[in-house]
């Protein structure tokens, strides 16, 4: 099979670009630990309210862990509990979330905190919240008639403000 000289150059260039992309993604995943939600934690979705930590949704300061705060969130058609989350800027936060019914999304708009919530599974993601501001948390997976009414708010506040209460 004859391949034109220029086509060879083009394919070598294109394929090497792809390989470089893959190396960058691979290194940042397996060396720097930047993975999307890969949780394998399962749960009885019909008893979420009775099972820890979902029996106590909200923001919890933790000690002796790799992160400073745990945000526990429960989604159901068509709302999130809690409706408002507040964490200090620069803190390391572990988001833990699940659903009580159908599939929902958990997306902190404009950031890379984004995961699917599926019945029977707990999703989790650890990240540093390094940008202060008010972020809308939206459901980004169609879940029924009230899908677009489903939201919560993440407030990333200056550490000083937080210490005052």
């Amino acid at each position, binding site marked *: 099979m004859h391949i034109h000289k220029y086509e060879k150059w083009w394919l070598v260039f294109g394929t090497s670009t792809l390989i470089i992309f893959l190396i960058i*993604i691979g290194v940042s995943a397996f060396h720097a630990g930047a993975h*999307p939600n890969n*949780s394998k934690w399962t749960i009885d979705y019909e008893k979420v309210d009775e099972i820890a930590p979902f029996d106590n949704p909200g923001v919890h300061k933790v000690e002796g862990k790799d992160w400073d705060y745990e945000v526990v969130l429960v989604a159901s*058609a068509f709302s999130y509990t809690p409706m408002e989350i507040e964490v200090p800027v620069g803190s390391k936060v572990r988001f833990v979330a699940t659903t009580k019914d159908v599939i929902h999304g958990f997306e902190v708009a404009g950031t890379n905190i984004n*995961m699917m919530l*599926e019945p029977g599974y707990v999703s989790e993601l650890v990240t540093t919240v390094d940008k202060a501001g008010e972020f809308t948390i939206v459901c*980004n997976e169609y*879940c*029924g*008639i009230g899908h677009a009414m489903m939201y919560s708010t993440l407030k990333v506040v200056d550490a000083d403000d937080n210490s005052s209460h």
Partner: protein
Amino acid sequence: MTTAVTNKEIIKEKQLPKGKNLTTKDRLIKVDRKDAKLALAHMYVAFTALLVGGLAGLLQVFVRSGAFQLPFGIGYYQILTVHGVLLGLILTTYFIMGFQLAAVSRTAGALSNTQRKLGWIGFWLMTIGTVAAATMVLLNEASVLYTFYAPLQAHWIFYAGLALVVVGSWIEGLSQIMRYVQWRKENKGQTSPLLAFMAVVNNLMWFVASLGVAIEVLFQLLPWSLGLVERIDVLLSRTLFWYFGHALVYFWLLPAYMVWYVVIPKVIGGKLFSDALARLSFMLFLLFSIPVGVHHQLTEPGIDGFWKFLQVVLTFFVIVPSLMTAFSMFATFELRGRELGGKGVLGWFRQLPWKDSRFLVPFIGMVAFIPGGAGGIVNASYQMNQLIHNTIWVTGHFHLTIATAVVLTYFGAAFWLIPHLTGRTLTSRMNSLANTAGILWAVGMFIMSGAMHIAGLLGAPRRSEYSTYGGSEQAAEWISYQFAQAIGGTILFISILVIIGVVVNLLWFAPKGEEEFPVAEVAEGGGSTPAILENFKVWGVILVALILIAYTFPIFDILSNSPAGSTGFKLW
């Protein structure tokens, strides 16, 4: 006049003395009349789906602008389901089956009566299925969108209808493959006609891919929606869906590539750059389209990071045949442009037939595929997916790929295929209307898809009705882009109306005559085609091996780690 070549060929054919055997090539120039009827039946359904699905799209962008509410208690998600099912599944599948049937008949010869009968059986099964599924959507029993993710539970007739569409398409694909096998038997040792070969590769990919959704529907969704079983394994159903779902987009794309590789070179008066490379790229698509579906599930729980990453790697390899296609296209354009006297680095570009809708409309599609493909690389890039997953960026992305690159190529093909089948011609007036539609589409899509990409980066979710999210500042920012989407969407709908006008003209009103089914010959120096490229056993073994590598462990893991299943929910 764009049909000059055809007319010459037709005259040649007519001048042959009576009784003299026509050569194979001459006999194959026109699609057989009976096959043409079957192919046309597909076009009726496809373009009806375009009109209704397009109208649904228009209503959606209006609703999302916040300035319009649906009347008569029609739901936004009902309209969204109509839009997705009609344009994503029905328009595409019908056009593809009709086009491939015509392509096989044109290049490998008329179908036998048995093969054609199978084609009709497949067509009617698909149509019964479409009507059944559509009825359930209209009755608001199936507002589950075209991805029908459990545990939202539609009426069982909706799933059964979609299953019939798939089964019907299998039977049609089988009849096309039978014609190809017959050709190979009758012409031992020869390289098969390229278009027929490509149709066969696409059908094979479709069989292997749709097994996933068939298993999901037959063994999970149907028994569950009928109440035979109470619970469903949600993650398994999604994994089976996406095993099918990503190959589905290549099932849409490959017929467009058939047009790009084989038809467009002839339309511009040039030749096919290389037969062997065209076949190789199709075989690479066959291999890499299927074991990549998990890249749609990157942010989901329950699937191991290693296996997600492995499928990301395989996803990137499917880009290679697209790079080959891009090279081949532009090489063909440059060779032809220079032949016509184009000088300098880019002088050949001006020589291309810009006024010929059979070229211009698909060309706009090719251009859209460049940002579309680049966006696709972002989507598949593991961690980067978190920024855009399920935002309206994704909607913007596939409106460049499927809803511009692919469908504009289909439309560009319909402008010669329909008159070829009806025995009419594309007049210069219809040709310029078709060009207008192509340009309107480009403008409308630039605005709509551009606004979707930007809003998506800002976090706007896809598949969501108009909402201020409790007066959030971020949502207010999205709404201005939703307004732009409504403007772009309106221009797109006008373009659809023009296209429907041209199609109606070509079906029933255009002057009688002969319109060419353009099929390019291979350029000299294009080289011979190695027989290995037609050895389906070899490629089949590699395909099965890749699927087993990519999916065995994740599926095993999902099954062994699965929580209790889900009961059905009807939340619309």
